[in-house]
């Protein structure tokens, strides 16, 4: 377009201003974000390459990473935390997101009454503090004071109750399901919004072709909300691999019993800040944080560069 400007002699060439106002408007957000996100991130990555050598913080290259992956104790803790974290993520993908999609699909049925009420009720736990959620569920499931044992007793299921949070084989699943309960509102809302965005013409056209009910959901709606499902998967992935708070409130920093609910977040916390008689080790903590960052980065890149590019988008 500048060609046309300059070739037209009638109009004086417009001097291109540097658009200062853009920079000015961007500056606050950029500076704040740099100060609280980018610098700490760089500092963490830098710290992971340093360690105490004879009382002095010195550059050790990738030695911290070597120790993390080869030291028998630390690597056992790390792989345990990573595999727990993967299970934590898989449970969210298999339970939280399908339920979220199903709820959204049901909410978007036009004939549903009290849709607004259901929507809010399901979304409210997401707004609650994790401290409250953790505490409530700990109480509900408590074998001593909880209402779960008595409720199950009323319906004759007392035999099926067990102290789930205290058993190594069930603790991780229980904590994951508590987290699912808390966050199921997010996929529901996002999918619900995506479903509302589907134009009525498309659905009417489908009905004219005789596609209704279930097959309409599978053949018309689902392909149209696939991009949203992708986004939700990425959000779940990032959220799960950064998770810490709920496990900390429900199971404590040790991720008990016997480390069965220890995920990367709690391992990082214990290593970096220390716990009880174990003193904090910042360099090792930063190393674990760096590994977590790389895992999340890899996951998100996989989505952005491989999956999202192959996804078909429909324009209305």
């Amino acid at each position, binding site marked *: 377009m500048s060609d046309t400007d300059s070739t037209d002699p009638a109009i004086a060439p417009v001097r291109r201003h540097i658009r200062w106002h853009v920079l000015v408007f961007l500056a606050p957000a950029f500076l704040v974000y740099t100060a609280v996100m980018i610098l700490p991130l760089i500092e963490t990555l830098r710290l992971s390459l340093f360690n105490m050598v004879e009382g002095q913080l010195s550059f050790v290259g990738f030695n911290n990473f070597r120790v993390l992956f080869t030291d028998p104790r630390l690597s056992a803790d790390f792989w345990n935390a990573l595999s727990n974290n993967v299970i934590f993520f898989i449970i969210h993908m298999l339970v939280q997101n399908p339920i979220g999609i199903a709820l959204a699909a049901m909410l978007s049925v036009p004939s549903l009454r009290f849709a607004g009420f259901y929507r809010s009720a399901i979304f409210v736990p997401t707004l609650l503090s994790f401290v409250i959620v953790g505490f409530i569920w700990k109480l509900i499931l408590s074998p001593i004071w909880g209402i779960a044992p008595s409720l199950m007793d009323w319906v004759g299921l007392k035999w099926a109750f*067990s102290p789930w949070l*205290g058993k190594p084989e069930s603790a991780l699943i229980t904590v994951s399901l508590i987290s699912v309960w808390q966050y199921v509102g997010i996929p529901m809302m996002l999918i619900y919004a995506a479903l509302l965005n589907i134009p009525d013409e498309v659905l009417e056209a489908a009905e004219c072709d005789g596609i209704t009910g279930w097959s309409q959901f599978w053949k018309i709606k689902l392909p149209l909300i696939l991009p949203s499902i992708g986004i939700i998967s990425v959000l779940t992935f990032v959220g799960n691999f950064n998770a810490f708070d709920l496990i900390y409130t429900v199971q404590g920093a040790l991720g008990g019993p016997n480390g069965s609910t220890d995920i990367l977040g709690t391992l990082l916390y214990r290593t970096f*800040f*220390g716990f009880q008689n174990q003193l*904090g080790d910042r360099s090792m903590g930063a190393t674990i944080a760096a590994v977590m960052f790389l895992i999340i980065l890899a996951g998100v890149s996989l989505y952005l560069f491989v999956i999202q590019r192959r996804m078909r988008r429909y324009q209305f």
Partner: protein
Amino acid sequence: MTRILKGVLFATTVLAPGMVFAQTNLTIESWRNDDLSIWQEKIIPAFEAKNPDIKVTFAPMAPTEYNSAVNAKLEAGTAGDLITCRPFDLSLGMFQKGQLAALNDLPGMSNFSDTAKSAWTTDDGKTTFCVPMASVIHGFIYNKKAFEEVGVEVPKTEDEFFAVLEKFKTDGNYIPLAMGTKDQWEAATMGYYNIGPNYWKGEEGRKALIAGEQKLTDPQWVEPYATLAKWKPYLGDGFEAQTYPDSQNLFTLGRAAIYPAGSWEIAPFRAQADFEMGAFPPPVKNAGDTCYISDHNDIGIGLNAKGKNPEAAKKFLEWVASAEFAELYANALPGFFSLNSTAVKMDDALAQEFVSWRENCKPTIRPSAAIVGRGQPNLDLEMWRVSANVINGTQTPEEAGAETQKGLDSWYKPAK
């Protein structure tokens, strides 16, 4: 008008700080958040009444976060002038880093025996860096009413102990033992460290472990795990998910008969339980055996080497070392037994009961506290975990012993 305003400004800006300046503020870093009100209402006022120019603030935090938080504060230079000292290796580490000041020349240090000071003295025995405050004793607290109802006597031997538990189980009105494994530390602190000294013969076994003459895989270190495993049927339903406060409440509400305890429970239990309580030391194997109790130097107080008000802080420490403080503290917090050489008169019967064991039983400290508790993996945390596993039945006593020994071997080379 302006003149008045100027006068007010002058008074508030120039004069006021001068007036405040006459008062020195001291902050005590501590993990005893349970004791906050006692410090605020009883202990600090007693000190401030004598030293009106010093204002003391007690700033406790969560016990499990204390060590790391106070370390971070010391490194950043924001810690208070007075630091509550954990016993043995943790405080020693702080002293070696130059964070705690040496207190050898503090008047009043002569009020403490070498044993009392041992928890806060360097390995060569030359420098002491914290004023000893109190020790805690392990044992079992029981519900006297429940014992009468079921008609059982206080057990002296292990067989009697399990017979009592069995009776409570058949009776069905009380949970025999109030303990859970969810928080893990109860299993070790109230379980393993409590009953163990009878097996490894207190100091004898502990010192042999440090010297490398005994291993955690030896029978005297494995057997206590086997006994703990036998507790399982007598714990409440769902003990795997029972937390420490759950256990405390079960006992003080009168739903449980016996509580594996540390003496620090006395004050809170007094406040909550409305039945008579008694206490007995960990039962011995055969009648007439020497009994050993865990009498653990638990709490001391030291001087932040980089504190801002060392003079005022030293005054406070001197007072802590005095007999007056010892009596005040021991009675305000029954169950924290004074380490002061001056005999302290305690009013609480339950606390007296705990202390009376010192006459017949040989005291020892927790095995993971000194020297073997210095490395990674931390032996104390390892013992928490395996003790809980053993009671849960997910690990055998032999595996528990082998695992802790393996962790210890990975860094600890006993002096030959």
